[in-house]
């Protein structure tokens, strides 16, 4: 009787001890989450309604920051530039990554070597890559215009031209799609061979197999990576800062560049916080829209994990 009671008691105290251990062990993360994430988010939400220069205490200004932002031509330019950048770099990058992954997934010789070649650019520091492409985009003697010259095309001034600076940065972003190639390659390997065999029996040709087997089976992976790519593209900073400083004539004024200038060059922390929250909302809305639309084009197998 006593032994039984002790066992029961011990059992519940064991569960309590386990819960206690859980909370002790996740404490580092929990503290980090509260101090470096939850608090900063609330703080920046508060700051977005203030005028704050880091030196004197924030002054509540209501919606004035937002009013100023929405009537600021720089803001609208940065939104336009950032959206155009995302519109170019995300679909282009996805198509390139998908095409190369499809090719590599066939039983080609030296798949690993190719995968390495395609992957390496994506692990390099964005600053080193930016320096490299600064030289490649040089109008005279740069690699790109030299290659175009071989085909008899007189290349534009790229980063020095208002019209071509943004396309240049988009082109550069496609160079770093190696991570996506690796992911799609793994995704393609995960598609059961049986499905292709079945399609073949039904008389499907290559195009049909791609359309009715590969694409639906890979669509969750594509979907997830497109979401990540959009979020990444909307927050791009390094390339714009290092290569063009937003120029020429604000042609590459990315959202984050505008935010950085406001926060750390003009010390308008309230204004910058408002910008950050607008970006946050934009990203959330786009992510939700993509998720909503996903029902139409993402195929989920019946057994959802």
């Amino acid at each position, binding site marked *: 009787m006593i032994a039984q009671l002790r066992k029961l008691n011990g059992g519940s105290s064991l*569960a309590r001890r*386990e*819960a206690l*251990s*859980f909370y002790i*062990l996740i404490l*580092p*993360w929990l503290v*980090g*989450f509260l*101090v*470096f*994430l939850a608090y*900063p*988010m609330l703080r*920046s939400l508060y*700051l977005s309604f203030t005028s704050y220069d880091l030196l004197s205490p924030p002054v509540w200004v209501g919606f004035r920051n937002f009013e100023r932002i929405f009537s600021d031509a720089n803001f609208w330019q940065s939104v336009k530039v950032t959206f155009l950048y995302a519109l170019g770099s995300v679909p282009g990058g996805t198509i390139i990554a998908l095409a190369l992954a499809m*090719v*590599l997934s066939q039983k080609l010789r030296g798949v690993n070597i190719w995968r*390495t*070649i*395609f992957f390496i650019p994506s692990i390099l*520091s*964005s*600053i*080193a890559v930016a*320096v*490299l492409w*600064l*030289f*490649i985009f*040089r109008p005279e*003697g*740069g*690699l790109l215009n*030299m*290659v175009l010259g071989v085909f008899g095309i007189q290349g534009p001034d790229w980063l020095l031209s208002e019209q071509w600076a943004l396309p240049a940065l988009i082109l550069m972003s*496609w*160079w770093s799609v190696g*991570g996506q190639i690796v*992911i799609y390659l*793994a995704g393609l390997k*995960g598609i059961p061979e049986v499905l292709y065999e079945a399609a073949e029996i039904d008389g499907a040709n*290559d195009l049909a197999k791609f359309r009715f087997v590969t694409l639906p089976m890979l669509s969750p*992976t594509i979907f997830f990576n497109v*979401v990540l790519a959009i*979020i990444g593209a*909307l927050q791009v*900073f*390094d390339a714009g800062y290092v290569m063009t400083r937003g120029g020429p004539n604000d042609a590459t004024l990315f959202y*984050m560049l505008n*935010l950085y200038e406001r*926060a750390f060059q003009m010390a308008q*922390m309230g204004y910058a916080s408002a*910008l*950050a929250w607008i*970006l*946050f909302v934009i*990203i959330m809305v786009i992510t939700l829209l993509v998720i909503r639309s996903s029902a139409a084009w*993402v195929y989920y197998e019946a057994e959802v994990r």
Partner: protein
Amino acid sequence: MDIATRPTLAARAATNWKSVRSSKTWQRSLRHAASYIVLALGAAFMLFPMLWMISASLKPAWQIFTDPPIWIPMHWEAVRAGNTNRMINLWTVEVDGQSKKVIEIGVRRYTTVVNAALLQNLQTVPASEVGDAVATTVGDLTLNVRPWATNGETRQVVALARGDNDTLVVVAVNDLQAAALRMPLDEVNAGDRASLEVGGVEFRGRTVQLDGNPVEVIPIGPESQLSVVGAPEIAAAATLVSTENLADAGFAPVGQTELPLMTINGQPGEFVMLVKESWQPVINEEQFDANAVVAPRSQLADVQPITVNGVTMQGATYTAADGTAAPVAILISGTQASVVIPITSADTLRLAQLGGLTSARGDQLQRIPFRVQDGFSEGSETHSVALVGESREMALVVPASVISEAFDVNPGELTRAMYPELRFDGYREALQTKVAETYFPTFFRNSFVLVILNTIGHVLSCVVVGYAFARLRAPGKNFFFVILLGTMMLPYPVTLVPIYEIFRDLNMVNTLWPLFLRSFFGNAFLIFMLRQFFTSIPRELEDAARIDGANTLQIITRVIVPLSKPAIATVIIFTFWWTWNSFLEPFIFLSSPELFPVAVGLNFFKDQYMTIYYDRLIAASVLSMLPMIVLFFFAQRYFIEGIQLTGLKG
């Protein structure tokens, strides 16, 4: 019959074609062709920039943007001039069908002139009737000959001047030949200007000496030049002398041309000048910073020229405030005070070619301005140097006896002697070039320090948190797990400003703390990854340890960690990757260059040297990529598996 069979044949052909098109072999070859095209395009796009970068980093700066491109790095062949640090480039020239390497000893420019006294039969013609000038050799002369179409015939003329109402004053080539002669340009330009009048036309000419008589000539061009070249060994005898000590000593003929001879004050024999250049006394900035002092005029005595390491400078005796007197060299003289350096600590004072000092920046020592050239390279050394004293004209001379081995060539026949060479100087120079008050190795050290601290932080925190989420049961666990997943996709800009504020309040701005402290509080992605891995470890292994009385921490260190080496390797690799490439945060938090990690340092290197040291900038960016590439080759598997994990959800 005929009519009936025809469509049948056509139909049969069509079905044949269809069956070919849908046949397996056709499809396979089509697929292969398409695959290889995509692969080739992709490989070209991915590989070309890398190859170009590696090739460019091994080239001297001038070769990087040539058109057509030079893919294999080349090097100019050169010989050292005597015991100076001046290199003399080699040229190749064809002599008797053999290619010979030579150095250029001298060059003389020539022009065609007309003896005004012998000039006759001038004609004034409308410019529209005269064609374009073509440099043509007539006898031993070169003339700018133009066709003049008049009265149905074309005559060869030379235009001498522009007349009124769009006319040209011309003379027929035949009439000109007797009056024209080739003269060295320097002799023509040394003559007095003369206003001449021939046949009613005004000319601006020169009075020159011809066989000892003054003759009035009109220079009409074209100009040409002849080079005198000789064997590379000549350079070994070269010495550097100040042009003040040189005096002209006539000319020595060499083939069709002649070389000016020189004498040197106080030295016997005659000399030939190879080059005349401006040289600038310089001293290493480090030595300058360490030893140079500002001396008021009143404390300097016995100001007179002295020679330090072979460099002539103004010297003086400096009596310091404590009464000690020392011989000094005056580096920069000001009106009230001068910058001086004790002769005993001026061993890096030397002459440098002015050509390498053109991008010097301004600096000052107690408000006395001077200039500093960063990354000045000579031989295998690169230093920041201060420009001191006055620049001077120096000539590289060799004894006139070399003329016996010299010969003259048309400069067009000379080509630069080059040979393929991988040039690693760009890398060495990049590491030795001062950037934002420090040097590149400092940035590497900082990045490695951050990598190590972040790795320790991530491994310690993520393993325990990951274990808790994988194994322990607790109320609210799912709630926190959802939060953890949610934070993975949170846009960082929202927290940027307050995080800056937090670290400012902690007095940690411009220290490395903000760049590694947070890793000790875990990372959502790495926690998630470890949790997935830990979940796959069989529980039985833990139970055994638990029965033996191990507590949770002991289970983690003794059971989980040894079994999770691949997952922990991935944590380390991802931490290395993120830390190494991180730019915005260190850029915002740090202002002292000696704290910069590689990415920020490279950005400064770019800002400072984008326009002058291409080769070093490219070498620097290759160097900054190198640790990542090395890491990738050692740990490719973990990279690929980690990446797959980030993207294979859904």
